[in-house]
């Protein structure tokens, strides 16, 4: 019988080795793939046990804080709270155990969880956590101005239409305002009660693609000047329309200006002149590197290099008709209609703010940034932003000439609603047909003060019946004023 006992022992020992092997498989090999699963509460708790760094606005306002709690079994857990609620929902985003992360909470996550650190810091935090302390992340300060953001959000809300505002500091690229309406409460995301999909979750300021309409005209004017064939005073004859491909492009409201010049054409946003310029700059050809190349230098055709999640950024440019599929800059375009911001040209408010910023900054596009600096809980500086030129879109003289023309737009043209007493504004309205119900997308791009620009801005109001000068210009005015008031 002892031989049989030996066999039984072998079988039982083999069985125990098998279950040990399976356990080892789960604990060593499958660990990371299980950890990545969203229904895994252990990972969620691990995240909750980290005391994330604060997110602060430029003026020190707390945009994201932690609410600590001690659980029944003595564990410290932290939940994110967003005191400004809907105000910064899209741009700051949220960090939720169940709904993941978005916005700055996502793009600056490494800093916020304290993972982005040197060896000494890593050792220190490891020792701290061994001693039972919570891991504490670094505080992130962004360049957003709460006063101006608040102004933008309430102005957008007051229109009753969806819309967005994006403002930056032209000389540095620091983002001052990024507002998108409708908004949502990021505290809901923390509780896992966010709607899974919905228009309110889209950051219209960075993801919303709208035909820019006439707000693209300063770019065409600049290209005209750079070609050397035109001056601000160059004269044109406006018959009320421009004919291309056998079809007429009319001015708004059937206006007819007759003999006019380039400055007046921008001031009054005369379509026939700019459609003609577009056609002339492209030699009436569909492949037009002169135009698309300039757009590329302004940042079109690629995802803007903002320190923000790529998933929440959209590239501007020409799209395939009826889709949001971005075409290459070498794809054929409709030069005349592109020059008045129609014909499948679409842009985000952020991109148009960068266009305004380029004129404000002597023709140079600066890399846009959200994070100003990162500090450890003990105050050590971990990161500080610096100015970085992305490209020169226009010469300084062209930029200043176009600025002069854009001043006229606000002083006496379609953008008069944007005037701020005592401050010279340069701007351009835009009104794009959406092709639905006669609805319009109303635009205004601007910068101020024109002679010493502190803020460049783009405003869009969706699906309105009003023109850019009526719907968008007043919002741009209020937000720019809030920025100038905050910095003075």
């Amino acid at each position, binding site marked *: *019988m*002892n*031989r*049989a*006992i*030996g*066999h*039984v*022992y072998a*079988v*039982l*020992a083999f*069985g*125990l080795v*098998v*279950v*040990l092997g*399976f*356990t*080892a*498989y*789960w*604990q*060593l090999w*499958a*660990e990371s793939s*299980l*950890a990545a*699963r969203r*229904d*895994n*509460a*252990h*990972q969620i*708790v*691990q995240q909750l046990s980290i005391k994330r760094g604060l997110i602060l606005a430029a003026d020190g306002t707390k945009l994201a804080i932690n609410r600590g*709690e001690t*659980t*029944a*079994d*003595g*564990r410290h*857990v932290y939940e994110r709270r967003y005191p400004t609620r809907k105000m910064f929902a899209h741009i700051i985003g949220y960090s939720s155990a169940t709904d993941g992360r978005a916005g700055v909470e996502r793009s600056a996550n490494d800093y916020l969880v304290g993972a982005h650190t040197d060896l000494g810091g890593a050792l220190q935090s490891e020792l701290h956590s061994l001693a*039972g302390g919570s891991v504490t992340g670094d505080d992130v300060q962004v360049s957003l101005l709460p006063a101006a953001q608040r102004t933008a959000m309430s102005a957008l809300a007051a229109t009753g239409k969806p819309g967005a505002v994006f403002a930056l500091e032209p000389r540095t690229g620091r983002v001052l305002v990024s507002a998108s309406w409708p908004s949502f409460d990021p505290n809901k995301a923390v509780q896992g009660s966010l709607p899974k999909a919905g228009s309110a979750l889209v950051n219209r300021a960075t993801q919303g693609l709208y035909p820019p309409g006439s707000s693209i005209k300063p770019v065409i004017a600049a290209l005209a000047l750079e070609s050397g064939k035109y001056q601000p005073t160059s004269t044109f004859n406006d018959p009320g329309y421009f004919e291309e491909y056998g079809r007429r492009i009319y001015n708004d409201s059937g206006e007819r200006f007759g003999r006019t010049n380039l400055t007046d054409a921008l001031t009054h946003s005369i379509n026939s002149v700019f459609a003609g310029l577009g056609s002339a700059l492209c030699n009436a050809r569909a492949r037009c590197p002169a135009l698309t190349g300039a757009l590329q230098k302004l940042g079109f055709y690629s995802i803007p290099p903002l320190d923000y999640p790529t998933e929440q950024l959209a590239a501007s440019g020409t799209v395939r008709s009826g889709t949001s599929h971005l075409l290459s800059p070498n794809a054929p375009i409709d030069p005349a209609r592109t020059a008045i911001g129609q014909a499948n040209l679409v842009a985000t408010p952020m991109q148009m703010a960068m266009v305004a910023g380029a004129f404000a900054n002597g023709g140079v596009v600066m890399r846009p940034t959200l994070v100003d600096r990162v500090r450890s809980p003990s105050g050590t500086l971990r990161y500080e932003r610096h100015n970085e030129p992305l490209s020169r879109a226009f010469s300084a003289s062209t930029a200043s000439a176009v600025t002069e023309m854009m001043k006229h737009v606000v002083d006496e043209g379609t953008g008069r609603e944007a005037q701020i007493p005592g401050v010279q504004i340069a701007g351009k309205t835009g009104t794009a047909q959406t092709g639905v119900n006669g609805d319009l997308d109303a635009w205004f791009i601007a910068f101020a003060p024109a002679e010493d620009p502190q803020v460049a801005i783009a405003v869009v109001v969706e699906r309105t019946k009003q023109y850019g000068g009526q719907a968008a210009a007043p919002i741009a005015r209020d937000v720019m004023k809030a920025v100038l008031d905050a910095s003075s």
Partner: protein
Amino acid sequence: MSAAGLRSSRNRELGLLLLVACVVAVGFTSVLVARSGVVSTLSLTYAAAFLGLLGVAHVALRIALPDADPVLLPAAGLLVAVGIVEIYRLDPTRARDQAIWLAVGVFCFVALLTVLSDYRSLERYRYLIGIASLAALALTIVSSYVTGTVVNGARVWIRVGGLSFQPGEFAKLGLVLFMAAFLREKRELLASRERRVLGIALPRLRHLLPLALMGGGALALLVLMNDFGTSLLFFGVFLAMLYLATSRLIYVVGGLAVFVLGAYVSYRLVPHVTDRVDIWLHPWRDVYGAGYQSVQALYAIADGGAFGTGLGRGYLLTNGGQPVVPAIQTDYIYAAIANETGLAGIAALLLVYLLVVQRGLKTASLAGDGFSKLLAAGLTIALGLQVFLIVGGIVRAAPLTGITLPFVSYGGSSLVANWVALALLCAISDRARREARA
């Protein structure tokens, strides 16, 4: 027998028990530190109380069975220690209950050593024990239908007043005893090759009939009690003991064939079994429903990694104090231990089980008579197979069988029954080792 040999066996046992007490002290200290951040003498108190209980069993062995295997008691003590620390970490009230059950278990252990001067006298009562065991099971099933006591779909509990217990745990011991006696008596007959069927030599049909009844009984239990684990355990122990008694592989092959057939039929016909198999194969198909327990257990195990999250530091309870894995103190305590002690702790735990299995089978091979051999082996196989079945079910090596992890899981009936089994093993080893030395 030599006095030196006696002393050395029991002294080795005492040394190992002191080691176990250290494990208890360290375990409780870890849990207390994780919970309240203070080192308290409370953990020493627990360790002393634990050592005191095991000390009683140790002294009983010194007096009654001086030659008993010195590893069995400390190994069982270590398993209980791991279990009680983990249960304390999950729910201190239940740890107190478990400590009371441990005291009852140790009392039964000592009582058995005292009352039973020679365990071999049990052989005489084999039919009484066998019938009593079956009656206990039948009573469980009947009372379950009468009172409606169904836990997790299984009819394995009897409720009397406020107390509830699982007669199946004791019936398991009784049936092992019965089989050991029965097979010792009939082993020659069962091993005989009197007839040939399809070229296979078999004993007479009337000798095979009781075997068929026992095997069929295990399957009937599956249907009547809805308890996959216990029936699989009975069947496995039955086959292994049959193999030991006859040394004929044909019984194992035939038994496995019957098992495969029975398993397939019950997979198709018994909804409870169908569910278990489906969860085993596709736990993620219904993560928040049927597969919830299995998946949460895997998450808990995986979260432990190589070295664990630390005793008392794992995420096993929600903020409201609810267990993250259902039944984490009973059937799923393995997941809790895997989470907090990691692969290192689990390897140690399984090695302790392997050690118990090795000592148990060593006792069986040393024993001089067939009944002792079969009884020691049967008790050991029941323990080893039970570990394999419950752990295999949790780590998805097999479908889940809701049974306890011997000595570790929370549960009075299981713990007390295991101490009774331990007492029998000690008694067999005492005689076997003395005879082997003589």
